[in-house]
């Protein structure tokens, strides 16, 4: 199949090359390349380790917050009585923000709560609030949620719609309370898709580069920003290979999250069965 060939050349080959060349180092004196684990050692400490920690923390917090808020919004939209137009508006808007946001979102937020922002002027002027900076981790989290909440809505609405009204009616007829219905029926059915969506949100936040680049340049420790920096650096010899090692580290981390996710899903399905 041409599909397999294409995927092999443009997906598996680059990742494979990444995995190999992360172990190459350039001697600063002779400029000769050799096999080495120096890159991997370097990314496990100092500023690079901090950038991994920063990325992981930001992604974990925004993924959980995004999942909770997105779930609430999805429920509100799905169970809304006059829901048709609302549903279509929310879902299409989610499609735009979740998939194509990136750069436009960053600039919308700069205009709103950046240094010259419209809302910043209101907050610092009449209200006298101060101290919040868009160009920080908190600021980034605020912007990330702007595309993560819609991503959660898009991902989870089909799962919520698959909850059959009959299940709830059956539970009610049997005398279950609202809490009991969610504890024993709705919750367990929704848990796997909610977990899956949260993992997707995490991966999305972890990989985010455009928004962070446009917002903070490289003043916040994020691994995607570090990779871009090391690729454009002309100062340090072998920085390019360091960038490859950092990228490989991202792939490995996402892989570990997926392994954990698969394990939890297995456990959950065994427990449900």
């Amino acid at each position, binding site marked *: 199949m041409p599909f397999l060939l294409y995927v092999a050349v443009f997906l598996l080959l*680059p990742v494979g090359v990444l995995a190999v060349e992360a172990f190459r180092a350039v001697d600063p004196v002779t400029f000769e390349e050799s096999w080495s684990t120096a890159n991997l050692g370097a990314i496990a400490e100092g500023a690079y380790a901090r950038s991994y920690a920063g990325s992981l923390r930001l992604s974990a917090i925004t993924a959980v917050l995004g999942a909770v808020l997105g779930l609430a919004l999805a429920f509100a939209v799905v169970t809304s009585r006059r829901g048709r137009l609302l549903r279509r508006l929310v879902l299409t808007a989610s499609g735009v923000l979740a998939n194509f946001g990136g750069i436009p979102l960053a600039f919308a937020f700069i205009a709103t709560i950046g240094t010259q922002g419209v809302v910043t002027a209101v907050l610092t002027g009449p209200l006298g609030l101060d101290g919040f900076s868009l160009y920080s981790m908190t600021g980034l989290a605020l912007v990330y949620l702007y595309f993560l909440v819609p991503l959660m809505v898009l991902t989870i609405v089909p799962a919520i*719609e698959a909850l059959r009204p009959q299940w709830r009616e059956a539970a009610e007829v049997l005398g279950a309370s609202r809490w009991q219905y969610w504890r024993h029926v709705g919750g367990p059915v929704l848990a796997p898709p909610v977990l899956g969506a949260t993992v997707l949100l995490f991966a999305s936040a972890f990989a985010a580069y455009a928004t962070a680049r446009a917002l903070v340049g490289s003043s916040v420790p994020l691994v995607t920003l570090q990779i871009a920096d090391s690729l454009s650096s002309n100062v340090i010899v072998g920085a390019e290979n360091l960038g490859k090692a950092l*990228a490989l580290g991202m792939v490995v981390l996402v892989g570990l999250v997926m392994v954990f996710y698969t394990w939890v899903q297995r456990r959950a399905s065994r427990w449900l069965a």
Partner: protein
Amino acid sequence: MSATSAGLSTAAVAGAGGVEPETPVRAARRGRGWWRWAVFAVLGLYFLVPLAASTWFTLRSRDGVTADVYTGIPTAEGFAENLGRSLLLGVLTVVIALLLMVPTVVLVELRLPRWRPVVELLTLVPLLLPPIALVVGVRSVLAWAPDHFYGTPLAEAFFALQEPALPWILVLVYVVLALPFVYRALDAGVRGAQLRTLTEAARVLGASWPRLMLTVVLPVLRTSVLNAAFITLALVIGEFTVANILGFETFPTWIVRISGSQPRLSVAVSVLSLLLTWALLLLISALDRRRREEDPA
């Protein structure tokens, strides 16, 4: 990994939302709707304030309200060139992605159902793999040209892919990034249609495979194809990471470049591109719904 792909693929990336059929979910009982209004109010504010504030940011000026930023967009330096390039890259990506995936999805459905898990898994990978990792790998491969293949036709081909006016390498990478969305849109269409019956009928009546693709499969899948094409187009027009790392100028990298000197212009273009994409998506979803009502099959 089967649990993985099942859990994520069923739900993930409907992309151009609002095209799945609506299933009836019972509306909540009276008196219990307060939390819904709280959710709408809080998130509504969160989502609308930045858009409203950005619009105001572009309209205000020292002498009151003016729309001169918007009237200046078409003639802004680099705007037409970069939007045009991004659109062209988008169209090329759509064409290649569809040429690659429509036959694959149909083949998997009709002839090679055993390959479905493999294709599903492979199309899921680009969704989870950070694009920046992929593009660092692509950069390494491209660096082979001067390093290992210098003077060979292969090196020439590598350089041709990186022509700044029309960087084909971006198209090739964007196809990979679009795979999850294209596959899921097409797969949903194939599952909804009685493709096996239709193709068997066409074969019995003597249609060749190419003819069958053009006159049976494509018309049946037209909504899915439209969906896939639109998501891909929007994805490419908004894509920043790959273009930035490989050092090409496209529409989003242009917005970032001008933001330093013309902040109002960059915000205006951003807001416009978000709203236009949304309007297009609403239009497609409305068209799709009308078609569904006319032809419920």
